């Protein structure tokens, strides 16, 4: 029963497990569920494990049991979908050029953002005009961009996005929240991060030191002498700043994802910020870098003992780091070059490092890497590199 429902939930991106589905069946068998309302609450509490997904659950439920259409992605989602599709398409530039009615030379001249805008416009035209069967963007036979109205996989681009439901693509929102998802594959990285734990004795003397107790007792000729130690408490605080913008970081996202997944549980306190290429006036708390800026100047509020870890490839145009208004984002115009911002960070946090997913061999060929290395100690994002980074931060 309700197998379709289960799979629709799965398709919209809610993490539902077969075990929980079986449990729902069990509840049904036990006669605990007697109405649609019962089913709604029971299925939700059994299948859905986070309030983040309640909204999706409601949509799917309404769709399945009431026949309500699942809403189409809004403008923001659309742009994210487009971005994802574009990513895929860029792997086949000739195809893309053909679809967009440009020749390849023109295509090469557009920068990613212009390209995205252009693409998005086509896509919008397409979404609106498609019902008549008028194909703007298409590969033989399939109608690549179009929405089927009720299906959760509303928009999809056949043949290119490899049948990944488009709403799912929208939900993926590439960097949305690294910490939640992602497979735990590179288990060694977790091991390496564990070494970041800094055990400092603080707190009350309430732990028996057995060796010392035995020694002192013997010394006392058998008169028991119990020696207490301070209990250990993990005090390490960490700020992670991750470059999640730009195409150059894309290949490393999965690696960063793993790093995040592990680090969350490892430390006393961990704050995560995002930036694009290098740090200017603001860091961002949301992966989209839109809504929640955090002024770099405010970083002084953190404990200076905090380990400040920047993850990024440090590959950009030199002016982005050196010029007074180097940011490629128009709205970030502060008059202070990123170079000084980085210096400010190292001054605030003596334990700052830069982790670079690019391997050491490639560093000499990128000028900005060398510039960053003048300010911050840089380590590569490998097990060895992490080891070195940890040793450096523990000094």
């Amino acid at each position, binding site marked *: 029963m309700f197998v379709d429902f289960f799979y629709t939930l799965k398709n919209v991106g809610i*993490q539902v497990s077969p075990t929980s589905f079986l449990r729902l069946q069990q509840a049904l068998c036990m006669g605990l569920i007697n109405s649609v309302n019962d089913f709604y609450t029971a299925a939700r509490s*059994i299948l859905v494990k986070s309030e983040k997904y309640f909204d999706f659950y409601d949509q799917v439920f309404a769709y399945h049991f009431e026949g309500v259409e699942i809403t189409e992605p809004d403008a923001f989602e659309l742009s994210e979908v487009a971005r994802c599709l574009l990513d895929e398409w860029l792997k086949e530039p000739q195809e893309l050029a053909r679809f967009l009615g440009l020749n390849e030379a023109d295509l090469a001249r557009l920068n990613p953002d212009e390209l995205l805008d252009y693409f998005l416009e086509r896509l919008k035209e397409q979404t609106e005009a498609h019902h008549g069967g008028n194909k703007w963007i298409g590969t033989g036979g399939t109608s690549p961009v179009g929405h089927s109205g009720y299906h959760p996989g509303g928009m999809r681009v056949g043949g290119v996005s490899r049948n990944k439901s488009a709403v799912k693509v929208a939900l993926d929102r590439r960097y949305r929240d690294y910490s939640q998802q992602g497979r735990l594959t590179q288990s060694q990285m977790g091991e390496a991060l564990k070494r970041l734990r800094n055990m400092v004795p603080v707190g009350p003397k309430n732990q028996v030191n057995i060796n010392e107790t035995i020694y002192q007792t013997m010394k006392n000729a058998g008169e028991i002498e119990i020696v207490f130690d301070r209990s250990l408490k993990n005090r390490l605080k960490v700020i992670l700043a991750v470059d999640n913008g730009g195409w150059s970081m894309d290949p490393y996202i999965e690696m960063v994802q793993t790093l995040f997944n592990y680090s969350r549980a490892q430390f006393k306190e961990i704050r995560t910020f995002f930036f694009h290429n290098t740090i200017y006036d603001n860091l961002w708390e949301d992966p989209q870098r839109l809504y929640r800026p955090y002024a770099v100047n405010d970083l002084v509020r953190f404990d200076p003992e905090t380990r400040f870890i920047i993850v990024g490839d440090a590959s950009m145009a030199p002016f982005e780091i050196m010029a007074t208004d180097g940011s490629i984002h128009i709205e970030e115009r502060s008059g202070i070059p990123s170079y000084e911002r980085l210096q400010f960070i190292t001054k605030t946090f003596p334990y700052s490092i830069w982790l670079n997913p690019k391997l050491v061999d490639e560093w000499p060929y990128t000028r900005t890497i060398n510039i960053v290395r003048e300010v911050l100690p840089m380590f590569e994002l490998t097990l060895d590199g992490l080891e070195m980074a940890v040793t450096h931060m523990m000094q």
Partner: protein
Amino acid sequence: MPTENSLTSFSGASKYVLDEELAKIVNISMALEMPLLLKGEPGTGKTMLAHAIAETLQMELIVLNVKSSMKLVDALYQYDALTRLNDSRFGDSRRDVSNIEDYIQMGKIGKSFVSEERTVLLLDEIDKADTDFQDDMLDVLDQMEFDIIEIDKIVSAKHRPVIIITSNAKKDLSDPFLGRCNFHHIAFPEPDMMRRIIRTHFSDIGKDLLDSAVKTFYRLREVGGIEKRPATRELINWIRALRVDPDFRIKNLIKGNIPYLGILFKKSPDYLVAQNNIARLRI
């Protein structure tokens, strides 16, 4: 099913207003013998729910307040080696030094296992502990037994306790953990619900006071830039204060003259923000 008869019996306690949805979830979790994980803003009554269940079903409530430094074994049992060492030296206690079991004390989870009656086990603020603790604990709760290593004795639960777990969502819980729980997110109560909650606490409260206090409260919650917004607990205490103050007139509230802000806003920056905004509030 030993639980069959208690299925429908939970429908709210004397000081707890239960919404229908949550009642269903509680009953289903009890029937399926699954731990129920509750998330939600502070002050939405997550902890109170466990108290209410215990009260209604007349079971003993065992509360384990999870701390970040806690190890799983602390929650299961403790082996008091120091007392044993002391006893063996002075020999003036009634305990049998050669019997280690005399020096084993059950922790909270252990207690709920060995209890003769079915109990309600509340694991409060589970998110404070680290992930290993959470996963290991769920293993124990799944198997309903644990091993006392010192005497190699397996303690298994006489009755499967009703397990309520609360989390303030400071950290994300791990997937295997979530997989073994039922989940519910308690939203902040709507004004109507809040009125019912207040009435259970102050059965003789006047309608005017109730209405204007609740109204003021929700206005105050909407004030921007507040770090810790006042919750149910604060509202109840505030109303208590209003009621004992002989000089208090409901008219004052309507005029926007709000006394005892300190009961509602407990952080000094919040207090200042609220105070500055009150002038603009027209209730």
